[in-house]
């Protein structure tokens, strides 16, 4: 399929998010803040991991904040957890760019398991509770990127360039695939999310295009191999590249649970 419908929509959404974050600079006021916490048309939005860290670090419980974090969690649960990564997060866009760069220069091939994210999440929680600072918000490339966009933080951009370098030379999509604790959080949410990818084995011609474009091929491939009806993994970012590239239309989005799940 040559018309990359989902990818185009997704790019529009990603750029739209960047635009939202930058909009206050242009004097607009429909969006304020960043991905850690923002306000869209008066609706408070909060990063659930940030909220968790605040509680762990300082013990300050701002109920409105936690409620909006819960709302955001529900939203991403509906859309598939790591939908956040694939469609919203600016760092994901950055590492996608890294992916493209990898085609141009000799790239590192280190592989780190996807599950590391989960452990990173635990580690962030521990360090946060022990140090009394929301640890991830300090080092998070997501925070740095959004701050760099909204507030012109030049040194943050330097860090991001470093990240890109690591991505290209060390391991493909290292951060988003394996390290990002927020990704880890949403991977947990995504496990039980109703928006999934549907696989129709009957149509599959086993051309392998999907596994080549998938950033987390290790969760896609076993499902395909097993011929399961849904890709249930929380690691799937619901980016839809496989949907776009499948020449046979064997992969589509679907909403709802099927009993016959594949490996998580």
């Amino acid at each position, binding site marked *: 399929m040559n018309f990359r419908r989902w990818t185009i929509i997704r790019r529009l959404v990603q750029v739209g998010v960047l635009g939202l974050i930058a909009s*206050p600079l242009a004097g607009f006021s429909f969006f*304020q*803040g*960043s991905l*850690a*916490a*923002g*306000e869209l048309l008066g609706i*408070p939005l*909060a*990063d659930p991991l*940030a*909220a968790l*860290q*605040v509680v762990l*670090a*300082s*013990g*300050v*419980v*701002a109920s*409105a*904040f936690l409620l*909006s974090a819960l709302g955001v969690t529900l939203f991403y649960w509906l859309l598939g957890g790591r939908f956040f990564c694939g469609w919203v997060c600016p760092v994901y866009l950055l590492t996608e760019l890294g992916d493209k760069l990898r085609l141009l220069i000799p790239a590192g091939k280190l592989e*780190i*398991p996807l*599950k*590391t994210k*989960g*452990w*990173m999440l*635990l*580690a962030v929680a*521990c*360090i946060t509770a022990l*140090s*009394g*600072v*929301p*640890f991830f*918000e*300090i*080092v998070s490339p997501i*925070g*740095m990127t*959004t*701050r760099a966009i*909204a*507030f012109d*933080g*030049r*040194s*943050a951009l*330097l*860090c991001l360039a470093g990240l890109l370098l690591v991505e290209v030379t060390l391991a493909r999509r290292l951060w988003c695939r394996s*390290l990002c604790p927020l990704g880890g959080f949403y991977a947990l949410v995504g496990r039980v999310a109703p928006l999934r990818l549907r696989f129709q084995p009957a149509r599959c011609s086993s051309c392998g295009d999907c596994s080549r474009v998938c950033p987390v091929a290790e969760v896609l491939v076993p499902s395909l191999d097993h011929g399961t009806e849904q890709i249930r993994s929380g690691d799937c970012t619901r980016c839809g590249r496989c949907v776009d590239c499948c020449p046979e239309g064997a992969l589509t989005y679907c909403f709802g649970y099927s009993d016959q799940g594949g*490996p998580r």
Partner: protein
Amino acid sequence: MSGAEEETKRVSRRHFLKGSLALPLALTVAGGLLTVPSLRRADARGFYLRPPGALAEKCFLGACIRCGKCVQACPYRAIRLAETDAGVAIGTPFIIAREEPCQLCTDLPCIKSCPSGALDKGVTEVEKVRMGTAVIIDRENCLSIRGLRCEVCYRNCPLIDRAITIEPRHNPRTGVHTIMEPVVHRDKCVGCGICEKSCVREQPVIVVQRTPLPQQDAYEF
């Protein structure tokens, strides 16, 4: 469960032990190592003038999620975000009073904008704000204390006659003039930094510092 499935599980467990556990642990240690020096660096930097309503510094660092909403809420662009050199305080909001002090908006939009409670929503009046305390750190260079009619800090104080008052005393050098000394009152000073900004000396002689903790004793005066 088929044998193949069992094999997968075992492999993944080994995988887990080798990769998934070791790596995060290593990274945790690395992260910790990164955190500790930066924490110390933040302390060494001393006093950050935080936006109105900020919790005590330690608590504030924990509760602030570095979202920057207060920066966008400030109509005077007084609030800025700390850069990477701020260590653990990176991305947190602060004010450089000498460049642009807090103008103490009546409705305190920065506090209203804070989602996480790092800026205390209980602070609803500017008089209740406690960002720090102005201190005349250099009496020798203070023009008012030298008898000149300056008192710019006093006249610009948004809590004039409360946070800063003028204590007149005889000027023995001229014999016929008054030294009009600006005196900061700690119980009223909100620490907005307008005095620091307005000081006409090249180096401000009045600056906002961390409010000293009260020390109890039995005396009433």
